[in-house]
């Protein structure tokens, strides 16, 4: 029997609330099917299952909040054979370490709290007022939580400054999630930084030429080309496409996550899967699909958790370069500054070129400066030869 557990959708996630099941017992599910909507600090995420089989039993009710790793459903594998794969299944194991960390606890992990007794009215009141009823001691029959308990909790909360969970996707929640991940990163990861400047004229000319043939909505932004170049450079230096879990774990796929800033504050980092195998056009199509969904909090679980490396891009007209903070457990973050015309020496001649500062923040436990240097040189090589991208 396969246990489908509450997935971890980032180093910062402690628990999630099941909002809706898309399956019921007896349903046949395939690899990649969306089986539930889970609410996290980052909004409502569609959760996929990477197993195949028949749903045996649903163990969690809708609107229940459970810690990462809690078994949510039992699935009978096809042919009765159990597979230990399942991305969603294995991730919580990795997160155990994270969960023990003294990061700010947005919700209190309460195992087996689905057995908590609570009256329907009390539950409704708790939900409406964002009260975490899993930590309340009930005063009703057999310890059941009743209306009065929730009222008491609300009045207590009003007296204190509000720091617990609010609506998903709010600025407070995002800041707490980012704070937890970045604090962990800065505390645990010995970062080293390298920078390289690249003459972008060839890449930009090449792109402009290709965009001329395209309709406006098919045009490609430089970021799509940069993602492809990063992915190809990572093929050559795979040690940076990895995670650190008491040792370097290289990842079979190159899935760069692109840091997307949200207008309401905060960031999300959806992954462009297998970017090394996609054409630049396909990467742009993926971005056209991912970015609007990221901004409206409609990402899928695997899109958030599949990233193997991160790219942060400042866009045009802003700061020259960015020294990033690695998103754990990844081991590298590539920072793209804004492309600016600068004096440039080539073949002893001084000219003006559009120049991009690319930085690499890397985990010194996993790699050394030499590896980082090889990666940046490989990346520059890609950008100087856009026609082979």
């Amino acid at each position, binding site marked *: 029997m396969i246990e489908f557990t509450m997935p971890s959708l980032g180093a910062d996630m402690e628990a999630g609330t099941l909002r809706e099941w898309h399956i019921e017992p007896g349903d046949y599910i395939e690899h990649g099917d969306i089986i539930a909507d889970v609410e996290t600090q980052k909004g409502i995420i569609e959760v996929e299952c990477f197993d195949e089989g028949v749903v045996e039993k649903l163990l969690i009710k809708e609107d229940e909040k459970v810690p990462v790793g809690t078994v949510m459903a039992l699935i009978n594998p096809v042919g009765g054979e159990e597979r230990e794969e399942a991305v969603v299944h294995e991730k919580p194991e990795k997160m155990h370490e994270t969960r023990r960390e003294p990061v700010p606890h947005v919700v209190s992990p309460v195992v087996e709290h689905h057995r908590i007794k609570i009256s329907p009215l009390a539950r409704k009141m708790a939900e409406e007022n964002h009260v975490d009823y899993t930590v309340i001691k009930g005063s009703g029959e057999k310890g059941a939580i009743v209306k009065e308990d929730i009222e008491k909790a609300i009045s207590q909360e009003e007296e204190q400054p509000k720091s617990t969970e609010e609506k998903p996707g709010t600025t407070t929640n995002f800041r707490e999630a980012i704070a937890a991940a970045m604090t962990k990163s800065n505390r645990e990861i010995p970062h080293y930084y390298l920078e390289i400047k690249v003459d972008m004229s060839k890449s930009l000319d090449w792109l*402009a030429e290709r*965009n*001329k043939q395209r*309709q*406006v*909505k098919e*045009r490609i*932004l*430089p*970021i799509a080309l940069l993602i492809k170049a990063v992915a190809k450079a990572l093929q050559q230096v795979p040690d940076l496409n990895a995670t650190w879990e008491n040792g370097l774990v290289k990842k079979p796929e190159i899935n760069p996550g692109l840091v997307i*800033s949200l*207008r*309401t504050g905060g960031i999300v980092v959806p992954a462009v899967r297998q970017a090394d195998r996609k054409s630049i056009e396909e990467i742009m199509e993926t*971005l056209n699909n991912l*970015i*609007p969904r990221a901004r409206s909090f409609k990402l899928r679980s695997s899109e958030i958790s599949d990233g193997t490396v991160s790219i942060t891009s400042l*866009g*045009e*007209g802003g700061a020259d370069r960015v020294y990033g903070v690695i998103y754990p457990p990844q081991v590298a973050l590539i920072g793209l500054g804004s492309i600016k015309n600068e004096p440039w020496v080539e073949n002893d001649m001084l000219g003006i070129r559009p120049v991009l500062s690319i930085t690499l923040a890397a985990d010194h436990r996993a790699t050394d400066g030499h590896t980082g240097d090889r990666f940046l040189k490989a990346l520059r090589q890609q950008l100087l030869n856009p026609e082979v991208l």
Partner: protein
Amino acid sequence: MTAMTKEDLKKLLFQLLKSIAPDAEPEKLRPDENIREALDIDSFDYLSFIVALDEKLGIETPEEDYGKISTLDDLMNYLSVRT
């Protein structure tokens, strides 16, 4: 696109800007202000804005013209010639 007055055009621009940056206040833009900087719109959203604009007005804005349409004044002038 013959019947569109300057006011109509402005209204359409504001509406499209609002749809990509719901929290922004395009009405408060100064005519010579850089739209992207003032409303904090990134290159992805600006491309979406141009795509929407082209669709609404039935025009095709070449990429080399992006630099000519960075302020409200530029945009109005550019579009009034082309529509």
